[in-house]
């Protein structure tokens, strides 16, 4: 008598919200990768001098590129938030018999994020 193996639909990730959110989280890395690629190209143009860089920048001043950056930013924020939020499962700090509460693991990461963002904003905008 043969055990029955149920097939798995290629659309398995649409069957549950948590699976869909997971696949979206994985997908964000594509945009982060694409943005980093763009960033490297941008840097290489910058290395060739101001004129070259400004020409490159002006060529990219279209709605399509703006949209790409907005989507990449949303993806990066989603990735970061979901990453921070699950980190207490991976990082366990103990004090005697007690576990340090998750907020103490997540909090400092958000604080560091905020501080870094403020510092970068200050350097760029000053």
């Amino acid at each position, binding site marked *: *008598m*043969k*055990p*029955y*193996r*149920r097939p*798995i639909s290629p659309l*398995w*990730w649409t*069957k*549950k919200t*948590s*699976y869909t959110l*997971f696949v979206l989280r*994985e997908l964000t890395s594509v945009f982060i990768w694409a943005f980093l690629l763009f960033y490297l190209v941008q840097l290489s143009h910058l290395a060739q001098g101001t004129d070259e860089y400004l020409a490159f920048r002006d060529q990219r001043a279209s709605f399509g590129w703006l949209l790409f950056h907005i989507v990449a930013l949303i993806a990066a924020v989603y990735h970061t938030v979901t990453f921070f939020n*699950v980190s207490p*499962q*991976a990082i*366990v700090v*103990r004090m*005697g*018999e*007690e576990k340090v509460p998750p907020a103490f693991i997540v909090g400092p990461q958000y604080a560091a994020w905020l501080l870094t963002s403020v510092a970068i904003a200050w350097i760029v905008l000053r």
Partner: protein
Amino acid sequence: MAERTITLEVFRYRPDSEQEPTFQSYTVPYREDWVVLDALNYLKDETDGSLSFRWSCRMGVCGSCGMMVNGTPRLSCSAFLKEYYPGPVRVEPLANFPVERDLIVGIDDFMNKLKSVKPWIVRDKEQPVSEGEYRQSPAQLATFKQYSMCINCMLCYAACPVYGLQPDFVGPAAIALAHRYNLDSRDQGQSLRKEVVFSHEAVWECTFVGECSVVCPKDVDPAGAIQQEKALGALDLVKSVLMPWGSR
């Protein structure tokens, strides 16, 4: 007042007479204090004695009554009908496992995986009984207690899409149990377990979907255990690159 009822759509597979599974609808009395397992036992007693499923303790301890209830892995002895009223309630065997008959799945793969991580206390050398027990402080116990609550119900495997797609994945409960023994101050078996636990089929196959921990009825948090073992695995890798000759 007419007695209230609820419909159960039960997955049936009779390998002796059919090639493919089917769903069969049954109507059972609805009782506020009934769990899905009570309804199945009612069916087996009153309607259809051929319906097959596993159970034992009826109190969320033995881990044998796991089923998919409306698509989510649950202990059928803890899934109350009232959570699903007015129904229908779809009852299927645990996902990702081969079905032997009706709601019964084959567990050989899981048993072999469990064994592969040596989920017992390993000592380099057993200390003679005359030297007394291995003592442990409450703080040392607290490091692994959570992971020792596992009842081997396999709900986590049914929730894990990675296990569904890559059946060689060692999986949540087995890695969580390896972690439980690795954290135990009395254990010295970490180096024996690492060949399995740090392998591609174990921690590195996990993409942290996290559903195993959501469905776990005992708050074991296998997903957390896997990430913690991943960190140890990464450290081990770095060490082996930096000090290939180092003491292991």
